[in-house]
């Protein structure tokens, strides 16, 4: 309001001052201008003017001097869905649309009611069914043939979606008055945090089958999923415990004095404040977990990055790896940046006055 009421001339002089007002500002401005001058023309030429687009065949790329976007156009379904059988790719496509759609739906506060959890459980079950098949006349596709974006999305959603509530319970357990519960939670958190995620994945996928008969084990994908979920829950537990410790004791005492029971007190008074306090740290953990999902490639699952790599192996193309990684980077960026915007809105909501 105040800014738009300001006369245009005054705003312009403000900008001029911050760009050129002091010798230091002048130097920094000049430095950045030179940097842009040196790089921008090249980037524009490579990414846009000289880039190869259509027709999406190898010849287009060979003729062009710029980026080979034709490869992305020709191979997008392989990058996004990995080695999933070609004729069945509508299934992972629906899974992606379902999960992304529900994610977008879930960020609005008006959607936060108990039924949302039911929707999510339903969507996860449906995703699993669609990907695995073997029922309702769908061709069965085993988990080692799944790949790309649906794998990344499923791993992320489950690791974070189940990891967060479990982390909350672990954090509360670690502060519990009951010594056994406190000890178990502490033990789980410390052990899980002390192991690298890679070794947890190896234990889940390679060592467990040696110790337990195959018939009693869930499949490889499920095991990786559980490993990621446990890892996420241990990290989140410690972040949330930080928030619990930051709350003044008086909050708990006031809730006790009113006669609230333990779970009412946690749900209504303690957790909303503790979690709001650690939103920045939780966002950090979530974004690291989104990117951690790519580690499942070491146990033979194809996430987005590994299916991109696999697509590059086609000898007909001159393996435009920069373009493929840029494409994958853009998807990861959209996921991570989207989440960080969501976290930002949560933070503002937590601070804002009640209406």
């Amino acid at each position: 309001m105040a800014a738009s009421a300001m006369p245009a001339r005054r705003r312009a002089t403000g900008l001029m001052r911050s760009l050129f007002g002091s010798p230091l500002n002048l130097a920094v401005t000049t430095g950045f201008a030179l940097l842009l001058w040196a790089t921008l023309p090249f980037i524009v030429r490579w990414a846009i003017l000289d880039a190869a687009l259509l027709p999406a065949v190898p010849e287009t790329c060979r003729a062009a001097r710029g980026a080979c976007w034709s490869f992305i156009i020709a191979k997008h379904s392989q990058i996004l869905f990995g080695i999933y059988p070609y004729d069945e790719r509508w299934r992972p496509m629906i899974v992606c649309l379902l999960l992304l759609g529900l994610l977008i739906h879930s960020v609005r506060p008006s959607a936060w009611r108990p039924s949302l959890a039911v929707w999510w459980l339903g969507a996860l079950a449906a995703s699993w069914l669609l990907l695995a098949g073997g029922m309702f006349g769908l061709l069965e596709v085993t988990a080692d043939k799944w790949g790309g974006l649906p794998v990344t999305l499923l791993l992320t959603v489950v690791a974070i979606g189940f990891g967060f509530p479990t982390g909350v319970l672990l954090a509360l357990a670690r502060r519990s008055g009951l010594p056994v519960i406190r000890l178990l939670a502490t033990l789980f958190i410390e052990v899980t945090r002390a192991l690298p995620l890679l070794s947890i994945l190896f234990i889940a996928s390679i060592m467990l089958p040696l110790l337990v008969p195959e018939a009693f084990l869930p499949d490889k994908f499920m095991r990786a999923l559980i490993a990621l979920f446990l890892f996420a829950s241990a990290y989140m537990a410690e972040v949330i415990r930080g928030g619990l410790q930051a709350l003044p004791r008086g909050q708990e005492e006031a809730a006790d004095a009113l006669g609230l029971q333990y779970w009412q007190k946690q749900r209504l008074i303690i957790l909303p404040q503790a979690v709001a306090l650690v939103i920045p740290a939780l966002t950090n953990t979530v974004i690291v977990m989104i990117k951690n999902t790519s580690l499942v490639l070491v146990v033979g699952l194809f996430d987005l990055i590994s299916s991109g790599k696999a697509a590059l192996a086609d000898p007909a193309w001159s393996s435009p790896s920069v373009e493929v990684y840029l494409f994958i980077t853009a998807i990861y960026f959209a996921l991570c940046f989207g989440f960080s915007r969501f976290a930002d809105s949560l933070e503002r909501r937590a601070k804002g006055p009640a209406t």
Partner: protein
Amino acid sequence: MTVAATITPVAEQPAITMTGVTKNYGSFQALRGVDLEVARGERIVICGPSGSGKSTLIRCINQLEHHEGGRIVVNGTEVGPDLKQIETIRRQVGMVFQSFNLFPHLSILENCILGPVWVKKLPRAEAESKAMALLERVKITDQAHKRPGQLSGGQQQRVAIARALCMEPGIMLFDEPTSALDPEMVKEVLDVMLELAGDGMTMLVVTHEMGFARQAADRVIFMDQGRIIEQAPPQNFFANPQHERARLFLSQIL
């Protein structure tokens, strides 16, 4: 206001009976055998030097601190380690803290209806209308939808009193309710407490506001080193304290 306790009080039964109550923090003895009987409707001011056990005493009544020895009986219910008993007592005993302890993430009105809705299972609309009536009594109505952080200290403490009253307690505990306030806000809080005292609420007030003690208390209790060493009606206590320690204390704060 009619004070509706959750149990039917027996007329002759005291509101609170403490016998030989002890409490230690490690090697520090906070309470060394306290005996106290509080009649229904009685208003008691507890004073004494810091560390004398005043706060610990009233915090044992609603079990924010667990006593180690002795017995505490509130409205005929013995305060024990059993969680159910503690919950029963907390419903009948309201508490106001030195640092207000309002819930900053909830609006003023939500702060007030939390207990009635979740503990007493009152319908929301009924809880809200009762809360609004009590907020009006403490003169906060037009702020009901603000958050605690937007209110002054005096206003916050008045809301805290209203929040405790929303549970319709038979007994109110005040733990230094004006100590964290700017001087010009002390009066507005004391006025609300005086009004409450006039309505016949059973009150235990830990405070150094001797003006309040003179005006409202039936009895002043002086504590030192975990013991009650003197108790008397305010006029006697101020005019003629029996113990050397009490005389010293009064000479320092008056």
